[in-house]
């Protein structure tokens, strides 16, 4: 009994600031404005605006997860061939640590300053006679957000995937080569299969990362709520329609359901990757 007292502060804290908020979302999704049980909030999820926001978020996350995973994996492999503890490795991993976490407002500004109306690349291309279509594309959910999201997905991929490529032993490559295998054979039959679970797992993590992102889009897009996080954020500031007080909670619950599904697959893959790489 005395031993349990030691973990009491931790569980008290996480109950108030983690468990209760989660319960509020889950239960609130099934209550109307006066606290009576209802399925109305879930039915409201079928509104075209909500459905298209979910679809856009999903497509955006899938595309940027794929792009981020491919380029991030290339970068991770390139960095893993550098000397451990060397300057390149330190620089790239610290830089990626910042860029993966920092995103948000800074990132939106950076892209506005680069390819926005007055951005230097836009002006420079204009000078060369190339018009970036008025640069409105940066503020469109697909084109603009895909570019900006990829910018924080690649660093996250490096951080998540680097330990996996570091697990590749140089002896395996040498063994394949001394047996007459080409580089392609090595990747096709040795490194590829070993890295596959980690790669797909990391890609799923990137998906949830993009799916949950709010700040970048909020700073970049000022009109409308094309993606689901902006739509939920909008329920905080806009007028609440009577009978729809808890629709925000239902949308939040929808997000949790999708993220939980993806993270479960991730956990299963991670277990397999750990087994193969002997980590």
């Amino acid at each position, binding site marked *: 009994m005395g*031993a*349990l007292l030691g973990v009491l502060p*931790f569980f008290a*804290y*996480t109950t*108030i*600031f*983690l468990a209760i*908020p*989660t319960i*509020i*979302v889950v239960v609130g999704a099934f209550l109307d404005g006066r606290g009576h049980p209802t399925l109305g909030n879930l039915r409201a999820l079928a509104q075209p605006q909500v459905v298209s926001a979910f679809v856009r978020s999903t497509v955006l996350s899938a595309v940027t997860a794929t792009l981020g995973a491919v380029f991030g994996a*290339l*970068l991770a*492999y390139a*960095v893993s*061939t*550098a000397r451990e*503890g060397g300057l390149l490795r330190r620089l*790239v*991993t*610290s*830089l990626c*640590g*910042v*860029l993966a*976490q*920092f995103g*948000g*407002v*800074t*990132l939106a*500004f*950076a*892209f506005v*300053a*680069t390819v926005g109306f007055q951005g*230097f*690349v836009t002006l420079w291309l204009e000078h060369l006679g190339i018009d970036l279509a008025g640069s409105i594309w940066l503020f469109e959910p697909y084109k603009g957000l895909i570019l900006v999201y990829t*910018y924080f997905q*690649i660093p996250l991929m490096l951080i998540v995937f680097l330990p996996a490529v570091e697990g590749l032993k140089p002896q395996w490559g040498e063994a394949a*080569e*001394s047996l007459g295998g080409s*580089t392609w054979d090595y990747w096709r039959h040795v490194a590829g299969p070993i890295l596959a679970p980690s790669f797909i797992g990391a890609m799923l993590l990137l998906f*949830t990362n993009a799916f*949950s992102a*709010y*700040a970048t889009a*909020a*700073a970049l897009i000022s009109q409308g709520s094309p993606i689901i*996080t902006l739509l*939920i*954020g909008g329920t*905080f500031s806009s007028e609440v329609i009577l009978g729809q007080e808890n629709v925000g*909670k239902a949308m*939040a619950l929808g*997000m*949790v359901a999708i*993220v939980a599904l993806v*993270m479960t697959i991730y956990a299963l893959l991670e277990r397999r990757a750990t087994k193969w790489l002997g980590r």
Partner: protein
Amino acid sequence: MKLRAARRRRQSTFRRVVVTLIGLFFALPIVGMIEFTTRAPGGGRTLDTWATLFNLGVIDRDYPELKTGIQASAGLVVLTVAIMLFMLVPTMTWVRLRLPGMRRLVEFVCLLPLTIPAIVLVVGLAPVYAWVAYFLGESSLWLTFAYVVLVLPYAYRALDAGLSTIDVRTLAEAARSLGAGWPTVMWRVILPNLRTAVLSAAFLSVALVLGEFTIANLFSRDNLQVAINQLSKRDASLAIAAALAALILAFTVLFAMSFVGTGRGSSRREEA
């Protein structure tokens, strides 16, 4: 030997090409920020924006929202790191010593925020924060309670890695048999041995808190990122300069951390 040399050469060419190309993609927006903040009204270059940013008098007088934001974020960094350490280090040590059966549960709780998007947390926290405001007032500093939850997964992983490298039980028993009380064990035995892990957990928290926007913005509180976003509507150049300065600060913190962690990296190499 020859095979290995050829292989190494190929790898180093590949490394240079990939790092350069992806590096260019990453450099462009940063260059864009530097270029934008050094534009002079009539064309040409000026450092006026940067001079303004580091002129505390002018910031205090003309840009009070930026000053408030910086102060709030500085306070939030300190509070979040302090609460995180005071809560996690004793709990995780205690669980290893006395309640090994609870390790899975503590891990699950700590990693849970990874599966709950910040925006969802905001929706659920709104009523909780109504109570916080009722008991403690409206100060932006209370955002720290939510930030501790956000940093839990990263702090847990860093501290767990640190605790795995030391023999907590033997250290604690040795100290206890010499007459040390539990506070002494924590403060003078466990904590010094966890120096690297504690630093890395703290630095990750600093980077996360400095970059946080979602929760502060939706609860209409002030922090650095909210201030920068507001400022951008009035003075885009100064806002971008402030954002870049914060980014450079966070990078410096993480880069310094990569050197602090050297001790553990070298021991890992010896194992392999």
